[in-house]
């Protein structure tokens, strides 16, 4: 059991973090105080052309130099600083959060169609698998993840989340079940442009992990959710699937449902299931993913976790509980519960 909430403003009007903090703490019962986190799209307008790398350092003497040497080998550090934090009585600071605003040298990966993304992605994978005492947990442009092991309010106050503004926010309150709670295991998980929050467990994790690792992604966070961020990056950025097709690959219709579809639909769905079978996720889950232009929520196909949707003007809300949405926006209109597996997509206006 975990609590999730996300909001997107389709006109990119920004919201500070105070409302989502209030909403997430409505769902404290869904967590155990061992992990909470937030992600804001639009957090760094002054460095919007740079990759914002958020790093947990175990210490800043030896590992910091190692990371910076690698960054300078692949690009240019425009600015870096310790992420401002504010001591909380019950939150033990076990890592030092740092941020780099980084510009890769695209020419170093000339064979790629997305060289800058590939450079950053491979730096993330290299650092996170090297066990150097550094973990890059956020690596997109103009986006920032803020997470730690604690209750939602503690983590929000630790980063003063109300000081950040975003037009898309996701937040998560964790109740770890299969693996221990730790800073890196808190949600949201992020890779490049994609962030994910998740309630449930992915019982197909082994299959999904073997599949995604064959494309060079490496799972390092000791929990199932990170594989969703990598799958979305792979399916959308590398395989060029539209977001709703990507979600259909992850949570496809049952075969007997496909059998009853019109022929064209049957062909498409059969092709998706055959091409991306190992990406299909099983087990109970409710997931919200986002990138800089959209937010997508969906559940497992037999709906073993809750997901509620609310709309108000340009804002779309997706959460585990209606009360959390109402805590953010008491005047929310059109509350609904989407059918299992059906993606709910909010996109920014073009």
């Amino acid at each position, binding site marked *: 059991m975990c609590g999730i909430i996300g909001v997107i403003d389709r006109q990119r009007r920004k919201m500070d973090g105070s409302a989502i903090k209030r909403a997430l703490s*409505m769902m404290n019962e869904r967590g155990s105080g061992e992990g909470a986190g937030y992600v804001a799209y639009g957090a760094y307008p002054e460095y919007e052309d740079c990759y914002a790398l958020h790093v947990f350092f175990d210490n800043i003497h030896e590992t910091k130099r190692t990371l910076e040497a690698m960054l300078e080998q692949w690009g240019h550090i425009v600015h870096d600083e310790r992420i401002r934090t504010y001591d909380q009585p019950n939150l033990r600071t076990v890592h030092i959060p740092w941020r780099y605003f980084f510009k890769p040298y695209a020419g170093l990966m000339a064979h790629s169609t997305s060289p800058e993304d590939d450079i950053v992605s491979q730096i993330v994978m290299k650092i996170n698998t090297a066990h150097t005492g550094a973990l890059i947990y956020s690596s997109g442009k103009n986006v920032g993840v803020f997470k730690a092991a604690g209750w939602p309010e503690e983590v929000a106050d630790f980063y003063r989340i109300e000081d950040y503004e975003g037009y898309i926010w996701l937040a998560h309150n964790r109740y770890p079940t299969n693996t221990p709670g730790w800073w890196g295991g808190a949600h949201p998980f992020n890779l490049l442009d994609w962030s994910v929050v998740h309630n449930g467990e992915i019982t197909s994790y082994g299959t999904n992990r073997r599949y995604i690792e064959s494309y060079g992604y490496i799972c390092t966070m000791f929990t199932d959710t990170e594989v969703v961020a990598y799958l979305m990056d792979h399916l959308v950025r590398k395989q060029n699937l539209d977001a709703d097709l990507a979600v259909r690959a992850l949570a496809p219709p049952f075969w007997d449902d496909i059998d*009853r579809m019109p022929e064209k639909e049957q062909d498409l769905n059969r092709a998706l299931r055959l091409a991306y079978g190992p990406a299909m996720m099983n087990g109970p889950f409710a997931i919200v993913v986002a990138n800089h232009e959209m937010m997508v929520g969906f559940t497992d196909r*037999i*709906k073993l976790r*809750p997901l509620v949707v609310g709309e108000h003007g340009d804002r779309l809300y997706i959460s585990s*509980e*209606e*009360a959390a949405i*109402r805590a953010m926006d008491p005047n929310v209109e059109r509350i609904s*519960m989407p059918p299992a597996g059906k993606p709910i997509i909010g996109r920014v206006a073009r």
Partner: protein
Amino acid sequence: MGKNVTIDAKGMHYTPLNRMIRQAVAEGSEEIVLENVLGQRFIANGLRGEATITVHGVPGGDLCMFMSGPTCVVHGNADHAPGNTMNDGKVVIHGSAGDAVAHSMRGGTVFVRDNIGYRGGIHMKQYDEKRPILVVGKNAQSFLGEYMAGGLLIVLGMDGSTYTGRGVGSGIHGGEIIIRGDVDESLLGVGATKLPLTDDDRMRIAPVIREFAEAFGLDPEPLINAEYTRIIPASSRPFAGKYTWE
């Protein structure tokens, strides 16, 4: 405290809120009105007696869990599992409710005016005079009456919608599910079978539909006379052979 009590639940945690409700009931209150409810779980949890609790707002999960006797009227939507393992009493929701409504319910009545989520009436049960009732005004999602062991579940389809969820009555071994309109054979769960609603059945459920209509100020006659499908267990022991080998 007098016969009527109003509690402003704004920003209140469910523990002190439930303590205040129990205290009010213990002191003889018959009408307890909760204002500004938002997300508080377990409201009226384990409550006994005859009181009426009126909730203004959106309560959290497990509303009226283990409740035995009182009436709870919600002006708003409810979250997951209202009426969870309820023993007696009545829950009336002027709105929709989440997944697992009336989860393991043992007695009493749950009326939901609009829609419910997945697994409504999961594992409802009955024993002697204890016969729980769940009535849904509009419609329900998949796995309705999953593992149902007893009781009565009615889906009225008042909004003109037809039931399209899968796995109705999956593992059902007692009780009955009555759904407006026809339910396609392919939607029936393992162990469930469907029958047309007989005149006797209609006579039997008419009082329940009348009570539902009265709770929400509706005309009961069109609902009583509508077409329904009755779903019951294919056998009382659908999995008798599940773990038995020669």
